[in-house]
């Protein structure tokens, strides 16, 4: 029975470990903290969490988004913080996978006791943190999670990034109505974002009366899309809808050129990345992206000074910090109040466009526009 003793010792040890730290029933957190807001000038910093992929396949997306969030925090603090209290960003690596995101979220929620988390980038991360966040009444505001499933993740779960459903409909209508193309080939990365966009696009395109002549997938790590492109070329489409992240897209667009696939190519919002635009083979590609009334070049310049370029996840990571800061100036750190305020957000103007929250915590004002790459630079299509 030595084993039993060992188990017992381990249990006792952990119990002591836990007991040494103060027990705070998770449910009461918001009440105790919330009622103290700034009565006596509290100058302790307010921690807010940030989760996104800092290692792994999607790390390039996460790193720049984190820089943008840090920029936002600096700006908020330079302008006096939240009623005199400074913001402090605590970033954790979600690795774009549920397990690591869950442990990251656990630490932010239960140890740092952040009132709100800016995150996440990947829908899988979002879904894994959401149950804990919901239970502890911690706000989450996704900046890039776009899968339709996130809508129903919980009361405290928001996102400023539009659900894929909206974007795919927009692109399908643009291709069919504006461009007048009736035969399309699709090629998308397997994953919540890519598969979601592709399915939505194909459904809407067929409803409109168009024909999907070829429908191809690839896994996220794949950098050899030659055979998929060969099949797409063989189906003689009028246009190719190519959904991919930066890395695979640079490889895929190059291969399309090499294979002589000379049709128009239209992509998703991940193509809003200057690393793609700079390539000769990217000339003429189109992509959809959230419409901002004017592209804020001064902001892009500020990011550049911090060594980051903008990509699809960057603007909303910045916006979410600013949005939360603005709300907390009114509500303090009481998460129930922040939540109520978030549901009321209408017409908030961020770098990534307008935010209008609906009752699911989704941004409905997804206005999109099509951009086209000309001379290595993206510009709005007519």
């Amino acid at each position, binding site marked *: 029975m030595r084993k039993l003793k060992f188990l017992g010792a381990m249990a006792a040890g952990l119990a002591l470990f836990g007991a040494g730290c103060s027990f705070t029933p998770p449910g009461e957190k918001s009440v105790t903290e919330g009622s103290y807001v700034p009565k006596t000038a509290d100058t302790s910093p307010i921690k807010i969490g940030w989760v996104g992929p*800092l*290692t*792994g*396949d999607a*790390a*390039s997306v*996460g*790193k720049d988004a984190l820089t943008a969030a840090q920029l936002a925090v600096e700006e908020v603090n330079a302008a006096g913080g939240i009623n005199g209290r400074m913001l402090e960003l605590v970033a954790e690596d979600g690795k774009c996978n549920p397990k690591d995101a869950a442990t990251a979220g656990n630490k932010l929620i239960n140890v740092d006791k952040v009132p709100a988390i800016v995150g996440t980038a990947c829908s899988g991360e979002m879904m894994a943190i959401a149950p804990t966040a919901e239970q502890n009444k911690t706000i989450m505001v996704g900046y890039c999670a776009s899968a339709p499933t996130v809508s129903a993740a919980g009361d405290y779960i928001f996102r400023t990034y539009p659900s894929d459903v909206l974007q795919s409909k927009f692109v399908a209508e643009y291709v069919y109505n504006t461009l007048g193309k009736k035969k399309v080939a699709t090629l998308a990365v*397997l994953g919540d974002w890519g598969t979601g966009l592709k399915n939505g696009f194909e459904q809407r395109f067929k409803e409109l009366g168009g024909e999907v002549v*070829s*429908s*191809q*997938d*690839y*896994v996220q*790590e*794949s*950098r*050899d899309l*030659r*055979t*998929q492109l*060969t*099949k797409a*070329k*063989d*189906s003689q489409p009028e246009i190719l809808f190519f959904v991919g992240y*930066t*890395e695979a897209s*640079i*490889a895929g667009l*190059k291969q399309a*050129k*090499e*294979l*002589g696939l000379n049709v128009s190519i239209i992509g998703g919002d991940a193509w809003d990345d200057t*690393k793609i635009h700079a*390539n*000769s*083979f990217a000339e003429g590609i189109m992509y959809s992206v959230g419409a901002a009334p004017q592209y804020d070049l001064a902001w892009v310049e500020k990011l550049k000074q911090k060594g980051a*370029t903008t990509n699809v996840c960057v603007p909303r990571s910045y916006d979410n910090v600013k949005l939360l800061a603005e709300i907390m100036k009114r509500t303090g750190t009481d998460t129930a109040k922040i939540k109520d305020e978030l549901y009321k957000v209408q017409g908030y103007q961020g770098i990534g466009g307008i935010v209008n929250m609906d009752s699911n915590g989704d941004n409905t004002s997804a206005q999109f526009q099509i951009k086209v790459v000309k001379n290595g630079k993206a510009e709005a299509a007519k």
Partner: protein
Amino acid sequence: MEIASAAILPQLIVNGLIAGAMYSLTAAGFSLVYATNRFLNLAHGGIMMVGAYLVYTFFNLAGLNFYAASFLAVICTSLFGGFLFVSVYRPLRQKKAANMVMLIAAAGLAILLEALVTLIFGTDVKQLNFISVQEGWHIAGAIITPLQLVVMAVSAVLLVSFAVFMKYSSWGKLIRAVADNADLARTTGINPYAVQLWSFVIACAIASVAGILIGLERNIEPRMGLGFALVSFASTVVGGMGSLPGAILGSYLIGLAENVGQWILPSGYKEAIWLVMLFLFLLIRPSGIFGTEQGVRQTKL
């Protein structure tokens, strides 16, 4: 399910050959290490990635001539590989570590290399931009670019030199002796340590050539190594564990299967195709095409 027209078959075959040639570049070194050192070096992809980042450093950042940069990268990667062998793998072997422990150490090393490169260079994709991109040459109903022809040529040179060098040169005989039975080789006066070290360094040199070519063809990322390490492993099994030409031919078989297979199957199954192939080979012919061990090797991993 859509079945594509037969007109694309030549292109699919060429796509398969290109993919096979790319895989063979890393599979060659991977299998050389397995043959002499008897462990699956999962860090081999990571070493290839280091080679690619070195050429990026010398060519794009330091502004050297591309060929000089490549030469330097090969030298540095080989030295680095030797360092890894002497500082990690060799001490483990001296402690009589099981092959399984070696495998885990290699996996740890692969993660470490990726993390270090990410810390230095960041996570974003790097492009060498040495060759301008244009439509490839039309040959026999298929399209292929000059760079891809170079990749295939390098792969062919590796195949022939492995086949000839291993069989006839004295070094090749040494390697084969150690590969067959290191203890027996020792009793005949061979120093297995030296053979293992040199094989590892040569494998790293080949890996850096692979890194340069793969970098030109598919760009450079911290994560680029892992997939190649896995395909190298599969190629080595299909071709026959411990058979160097086998690993190269195995790479082509996998490249062809996953590309030509998409003629009938949906493209989402691309990876599944070679996985099924790997699994079937292990069940039906575990010794692979050229292996001679008949699936009974008792050394535990």
